[in-house]
């Protein structure tokens, strides 16, 4: 029983981190219909930047979020301006190929800078735990999970309470009309791309403390993230958060109670079968692509 409670609490904390990163991916899709295959690569990049800050300057990795997030945000803003914007009218499959290429380039660059060996960030508290009525909760997990929730809530507030958030939602609903009422859709889109990637960067800083990583880890991450957003319905923020929690629980429970050998297949299988049975995901609505009015 204690083991189950511990597993559930841990998986909810992990789910919170997944939710943060996945919300960035689904936000980008919702606003600009771009599936950012490089999302996992930028998560790993966030982890490597955090690693260098911790290794060279002794900066606590969770404080490092304050540095990695703006850096990755700036990268995302630049990438949108330079690469994504020029092909915004191309078929969606083109942007998938583009961001896939971007993921490969990022993987290669990280391999050149940090090497292709497994890296881990180990601050002093990494081996310490909280004890609560027989339940052991590693401090890193607790801090990481809570930090993820804080960043996620901040993102949520930006989207729902600010003028920028309204502009983002207007640009997502109808770019042409948003332009007409004075929203600079290009600027908004660049901000969103930056914000989305920043979520990945922040997530990278946090997960870097929890799991070892290498440049090639991004495949696993993008599979996991796609499984989450696809399950929740592409473009749906609520769906992404919900399915991230479900996914976190499913993954942790599988790892604890079932063979871990097949566990790597879980995200791929979810993507494959969910898209097969319900292409719009769980909470997503099917796009009405034939909305001609007579």
């Amino acid at each position, binding site marked *: 029983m204690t083991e189950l409670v511990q597993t559930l609490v841990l998986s909810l904390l992990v789910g919170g981190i997944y939710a943060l990163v996945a919300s960035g991916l689904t936000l980008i899709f919702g606003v600009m219909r771009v599936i950012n295959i490089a999302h996992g690569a930028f998560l790993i990049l966030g982890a490597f930047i955090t690693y260098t800050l911790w290794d060279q300057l002794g900066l606590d990795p969770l404080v490092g979020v304050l540095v990695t997030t703006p850096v990755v945000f700036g990268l995302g803003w630049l990438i949108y301006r330079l690469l994504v914007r020029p092909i915004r009218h191309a078929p*969606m499959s083109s942007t998938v190929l583009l961001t896939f290429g971007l993921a490969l380039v990022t993987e290669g660059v990280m391999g050149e800078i940090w090497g292709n060996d497994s890296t881990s960030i180990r601050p002093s508290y990494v081996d310490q735990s909280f004890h609560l009525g027989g339940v052991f909760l590693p401090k890193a997990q607790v801090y990481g999970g809570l930090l993820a929730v804080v960043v996620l809530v901040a993102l949520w507030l930006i989207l729902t309470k600010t003028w920028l958030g309204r502009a983002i939602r207007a640009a997502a609903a109808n770019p042409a009309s948003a332009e007409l009422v004075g929203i600079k859709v290009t600027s908004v889109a660049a901000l969103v791309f930056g914000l989305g990637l920043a979520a990945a960067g922040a997530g990278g800083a946090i997960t870097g403390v929890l799991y070892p990583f290498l440049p090639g880890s991004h495949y696993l991450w993008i599979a996991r993230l796609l499984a989450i957003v696809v399950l929740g319905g592409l473009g749906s923020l609520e769906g992404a958060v919900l399915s991230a929690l479900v996914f976190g629980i499913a993954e942790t429970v599988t790892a604890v109670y079932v063979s871990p050998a097949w566990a790597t297949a879980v995200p*791929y299988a979810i993507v494959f079968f969910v898209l*097969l049975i319900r*292409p719009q995901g769980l909470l997503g609505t099917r796009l009405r692509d*034939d909305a001609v009015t*007579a």
Partner: protein
Amino acid sequence: MSATTAESAPSDPPKFDLIWVGRLIALVAGVLLVLYPILSDNLYYQNMIILSLVFAIAASGLSIITGLAGYVSLGQGAFIGLGGYTVGVLSTHHPDTNVWLWMPLAGVVAGGVALILGFVALRARGPSFVIITVAFLFLVQVIAINWRSLSGGTEGLSLPIPTWDPDIANWPFYYSLVGILVLQLLLAWWIRRTKLGTGLVAIREDETKAATIGINLPVEKMIGFVASAVLVGVGGGVYGYYLTFIDPRGMFNILLSVETMLALLVGGKATLWGPVLGAFIVEPLNEYANNNLGGGNTRLLLFGGLLVLIVLFLPQGVLPAIESLLNWLRTRGRAGLVGARIGTGGSLASLTERLSLVDREAASDPPPLLEVTDLRKAFGGLKAVDGASLVVPEGSITGLIGPNGSGKTTLFNLIDNTIHADGGQIRLAGERIDGLSSWARAHRGLGRTYQITRLFREMTVLENVVAAQRSFSWGQLGRIAVSGSEAKAAEELLEYVGMRAFRDQQARALSFGQQKLVELAQVLMLDPQLILLDEPAGGINPVLIDRMSEMIRELNSYGKTFLIVEHNMPFVLGLCDPVHVLGRGRTMASGTPAEIQKDPAVVDAYLGDDFVLEAAEAGQPNDVPQKASQT
């Protein structure tokens, strides 16, 4: 073919020469390829060519499903791996059998698995499909890693060492791959010329529309997927044997798929030779990066960078870029054909023997051809069509009018299953057709045009018309579409609508009115009993409106029944009888034009109380300015 090229000859005489230049280059390259192992025993270059051949086969296969049908797949490498593993597993379990005997089985396995992927493509398209193909590849890889008893797991499999003369060690691999590539190219070439090929391109351009002109989506996509994988599997088998050692990380590496996709994109997606050219550009680059630039990360930078650059700067690929450059040089400073006058058209009788006049005097009370009963469709809380019922008598030109948003186009979409109805019945010639797919409805005699035309933009006018399939049969899919009887029938219809001179123009270059005419020809190619026209007179000039109503009358006299949505009141009221009025998703009135104009509910909801239409009654639709105000 030759007769018609002569007619359109003035516009492009040098094209003929260019084709021969291209063919000459291909011939010389082919001869060099065949002779190379005989002339040189440089194993480094032989290896490079062998790997290029593998990717050329894979990319050419990919061109069928990605280039023609538009389903972008990053899982194509899986078929190389599946072919390799089929041969690897069989030859290690049966060490005494000649390894070459397993090659056809590699194709069968790849084709079988492709069928599964094709099944996926029945439901998912666009970016979802790309994601699925990546997931599919990784899933196959995980299975290969974990199914140790069959695949040997991560340790991989060692295939039997070739037993032939080491002096010609590479020859059997080299020449069998050349042979497979030739077969693959023949297959790709043949498919492009058939009804199947035009069907696949139509699916790429507009899948929903393709279904409404009779293209059986599941069957054609399935065939496309299998055709894109079988020979790739065989090639993968040869590749595995050539490597003599295979493991899941190598054979199901995502980079194999990326390289295949790159070869296709670099060369030109929808071209025959592009994938081959691309493979022979990308693979040598890959070898160079591996051997001279440190491999590993450099390879990632190369592939990733190339992918980004191609998508950004050369999305159409090298061969199409060269072609459009040559076209630009040739046509520079000349006026395009698109601005030319539309032909005056001809009478149907002089054009084709496929139609015969219908004597309609005999049946004074014609049976209903289309019967819609209590049809319903809601979008969320909005009831777009809310229990609409109407009857289209056989041989009539029936009108359907109503205010904007009253559900007219949605009703059309429900009738041809572009959108699934929530409830209600649709009968065509007495038979229930609700529950049938769009293409099955088209095969039963339903044709439909769109308010905003939906031609296949990247196809020529002629291809747009031949793409229509008026029935389904396996044999028909293999029929050559671009010449012969299919093309002749299409040209007759283009002549009729006055668009024959534009037959080789791309549809996207046409004006809106011209597109309306081509779309009509496309629908006529289905030889439908009932034609649904969505605003045939909308957005076109008055002369064309007259021609349109003339054609509708003539087609009607040859037995075609029409249901027309139109806001141009003189046009509708002069042409149609009966007329149905739709309001808030229901039929609010039906009757002759005279009755409709007097119906107080219709006047109130749609026509307006100052509506006067003398012209329609006088039978001269366009002499008097219309007034169709809405209040």
